[in-house]
């Protein structure tokens, strides 16, 4: 077994425990959500609503999942990197394993969430009359299911790639990074507020330009493109980091 496979198994060992605990808690919360909806819908309403109508309970998992990726992006460097380097990993092998782990994590989380969305549709339809389920990306149910996975996965991968940079910077500079980030956000909002809005609008323009051309693939294409750029930037920041 080569070094990259060994370190990937090391990462998986850490990830499996964390992810299992996370999903166990989330599933328990989802079940509680269904129970509350079933018996107390008129009094307590939990989930995602559209025009006052419950559309999904497991849809509200998206936010905790994103938070998981935000924290995981920092923990992977703060905890795993030091230990891996201590146990004889190279930075390059570690980075490769981070990439692989982010892909695995994005994929598994996307699949679990997509399955939950399908189950959710059945439950919510039974419990709440005339509910509307979004995420209808294709008329073919299998293609639709795969598209949901692809969209989820690309969004999660994008989050992971962005947090990868944050994780590296936090590892390199510690608390100084957060002070610097605070100053940057504060300063840029004062001095470059309009320009930031303009920049954001340009991204929106790009999205609107690509939407009719790429259709449902617009989000995955943009997310994968941005993720690639973030991972390249991440490696340039990471390759000479000390333990």
């Amino acid at each position, binding site marked *: *077994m*080569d*070094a*990259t496979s*060994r*370190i990937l*198994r*090391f990462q998986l*060992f*850490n990830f499996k425990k964390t992810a299992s605990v996370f999903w166990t808690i989330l599933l328990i919360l989802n079940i509680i959500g269904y129970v509350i909806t079933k018996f107390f819908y008129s009094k307590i309403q939990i989930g995602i609503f559209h025009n006052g109508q419950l559309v999904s309970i497991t849809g509200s998992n998206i936010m905790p999942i994103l938070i998981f990726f935000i924290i995981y992006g920092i923990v992977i460097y*703060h*905890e795993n990197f*030091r*230990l*891996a*380097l*201590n*146990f*004889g*990993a*190279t*930075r*390059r*092998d570690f980075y490769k394993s981070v990439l692989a782990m982010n892909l695995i994590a994005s994929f598994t989380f996307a699949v679990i969430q997509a399955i939950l969305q399908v189950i959710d549709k059945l439950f919510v339809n039974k419990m709440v009359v005339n509910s509307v389920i979004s995420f209808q990306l294709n008329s073919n149910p299998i293609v639709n299911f795969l598209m949901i996975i692809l969209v989820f996965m690309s969004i999660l991968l994008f989050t992971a790639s962005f947090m990868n940079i944050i994780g590296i910077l936090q590892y390199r500079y510690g608390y100084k990074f957060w002070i610097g980030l605070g100053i940057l956000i504060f300063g840029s909002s004062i001095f470059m507020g309009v320009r930031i809005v303009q920049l954001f609008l340009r991204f929106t323009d790009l999205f609107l330009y690509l939407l009719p051309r790429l259709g449902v693939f617009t989000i995955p294409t943009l997310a994968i493109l941005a993720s690639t750029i973030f991972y390249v930037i991440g490696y340039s920041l990471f*390759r*000479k980091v*000390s*333990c």
Partner: protein
Amino acid sequence: MLEIKGLNKSFGSNLVLKDINLDIEGNKIYGLLGRNGAGKTTLLNLISSQLIRNSGDIKYQGEEIFENSKAIEDMCLVKPLPESSKDKKVRDIFTMARLMYKNWDESYKEQLISEFNLNTNKRLQKLSAGNKTIVGLIIGLASRAKLTIFDEPTLGLDAAMRYMFYNSLLKDYETNPRTVIISTHLIDELANLFEEVIILNSNMITLKDEVSNLRERSYFLSGNGDIVNEIVKNRKILYREELGSTMIVGIYDNLSENEKREIRSRNIEISTIPLQKLFVFLTEGTLGEVM
């Protein structure tokens, strides 16, 4: 096995290692000695690629070690585990080590756990300082890495545990030879383990020699001051103490059997300088003369 050439490392304006040149041979036990702040830990971190050097080469079996998986996977640096792993259970830390080291010996790890009587169900932070050290020692021994480096391996260990570690290391070294570098302050305790000693002083390697050579070259001569002064004339003196007419002088030089006989015939006592004392003398500033 390991070749270091022109290695320099500084942290900001603080120069820690200057022009380090060192050859480490295979299947030997080295003692890396140096006073506090001499740069021992930095050197070991550089060898294992955990720190980035400013300049110089470190080659393992002829290949540059930095970002070289083949070289790094043959190394195991035992140092205190990072703070970030304090919440992990000891058994999980061993599992992670097993996943990372290609020559990991699981049955040997189990044997060591029972010998050291370590509770692996506890979290790292719940262990005493000595037991935390033992976790690292077990990883180092069970890793069976071709180059195993112990940085201050006896921190927090009581005498019984220290000797248990020395015995385990020696026993394993006999059946599974490998290169071991031990950085320590407990020189006399480990002197019998070392085959070669490397002394790091004032940011530089000031001495690298076999322990047997050091013992053959370092002597205390004690007796009449005039006679001792005459004998040590033109020899490298490490230490000098006068008690009335008696003088004790520590020298670092070869003495032939004939010379020893002649010195003894003049009522001068000759004794070997213990390694710990020799280290103190060698790092007190007289080493420039010795080298």
